[in-house]
């Protein structure tokens, strides 16, 4: 346990000293300004457009954090064998991987806290400078909800990427497979949704339909768009849905992380 905590601490120190991590933190703080500038082109639903831009930009930045900070860190550790610096008694492979995952998650939590602050600032500004008719139902606190729900999704994304990293042989493979998995996670839900359409169901063979559905279960539901769209329109998300969302993502993250531990303890380094 103490070794895990020590590796977590080292990982956090390593990441917060990276210039790219500091860039992501500053970029998230700047996203409200981008949202304000972009919303100037619009004349009606200004509040909704601002939340759209903010949600899209922060999501892109945090996904980039997973790809360019987490994957490059694991690529260096496993690809260039620098994990041997840690993997000496008393540090077990399990303790090492758990420490790395916890460190990466806590740094992502820091980015989420910044997202929360930036989101609340943007909402406060929108409430003060936009008339009621152009900001349907947007209220203070939605930046908090958006950041928390997005964080939960990114925890499962990070666990999925860790699983890919311990299985792949080098940085190039890790990046390619992680980008492919994220892309599939983004595009599969609308395909599955379209397949459930009555008209489409008549033309698609049942085997293809059930195969696509099963593949859909392999990837986490990265339905951040739905959440962001609902919040941008001031539609509250029910507490049951939030609870199910948390359970779904924590269970998925647990499955992926346990698989990563099993694969990592058996692989040749």
């Amino acid at each position, binding site marked *: 346990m103490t070794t895990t905590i020590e590796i977590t601490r080292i990982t956090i120190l390593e990441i917060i000293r990276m210039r790219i991590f500091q860039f992501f933190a500053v970029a998230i703080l700047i996203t409200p300004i981008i949202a304000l500038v972009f919303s100037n*082109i619009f004349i009606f639903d200004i509040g909704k457009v601002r939340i759209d831009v903010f949600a899209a930009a922060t999501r892109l930045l945090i996904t980039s954090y997973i790809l360019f900070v987490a994957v490059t860190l694991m690529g260096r550790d496993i690809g260039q064998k620098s994990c041997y610096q840690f993997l000496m008694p008393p540090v077990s492979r399990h303790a090492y991987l758990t420490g790395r995952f916890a460190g990466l998650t806590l740094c992502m939590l820091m980015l989420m806290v910044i997202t929360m602050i930036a989101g609340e600032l943007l909402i406060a500004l929108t409430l003060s400078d936009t008339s009621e008719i152009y900001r349907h139902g947007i209220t203070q606190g939605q930046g908090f909800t958006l950041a928390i729900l997005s964080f939960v999704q990114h925890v499962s994304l990070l666990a999925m990427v860790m699983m890919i990293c311990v299985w792949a042989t080098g940085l190039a493979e890790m990046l390619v497979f992680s980008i492919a998995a994220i892309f599939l996670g983004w595009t599969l839900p609308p395909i599955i949704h379209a397949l459930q359409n009555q008209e489409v169901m008549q033309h698609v063979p049942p085997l293809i339909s059930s195969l696509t559905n099963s593949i859909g279960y392999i990837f986490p539901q990265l339905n951040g768009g739905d959440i962001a769209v609902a919040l941008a329109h001031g539609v509250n998300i029910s507490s049951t849905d939030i609870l199910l969302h948390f359970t779904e993502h924590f269970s998925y993250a647990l499955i992926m992380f346990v698989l990563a531990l099993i694969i990592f303890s058996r692989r040749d380094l």
Partner: protein
Amino acid sequence: MQRLLWSMLLFATITYGASRMLISDSSAILSTVVQSGPLPSVAQQILAGPFIGMVADYNILAVFTIYDQITYKLPDSEKQHAWRQLASYLQRTSDIDPLFMDTYRLSSGLLAYSEHGTRDAVAILAKGAEARSWDWELPFLTGFIAYDNLKDSDQAFYFMEMATKRPGVPPVAIGLASHMLTQEQGLEASISFLHYLLTTMPAAYHGQIQRRLRELKESAL
């Protein structure tokens, strides 16, 4: 060697700047928005992934561009095609983000008063009236346009009835709804409703509504 590099840099900067300025002056790029039209809704959803809200915003930007082209740039022969494209952008936006109010404001404020767009506008607004189940404004607008432009009393009554059952519906709306359903008082009600619509739309978009108001007032005389 250094001097040569600086001269090459200067030359490349001038040619780059000049070509960029010439391209932005050309209307060829802008008119591709009108010519090609939007991707089908499902394709937009698949490509957008979690950025669906942003794609809906871009569709609305395309609507602004097309409206600008119809007003200032396109010859009369191409206007009908441009209105059809404008309608399909609004249709796609209502498919991918059915709660987005801009879609319905532009449908009721622009498309409904265009020459061939009224039926499309009513179809888009009807979708919004179903999706925004707490909002009285959309079924009210749908009913009004169905009554005033399509002369479809059955459809108008269906949506007016829907509007009056929604929370927060103001007495003036209920009054107007009942006036509208009375054939004899239709003209007066239409004029007062158009005045109401003017207060909810920015000045740049008043043209079509003012034209309709003039027509109604002239026929009343």
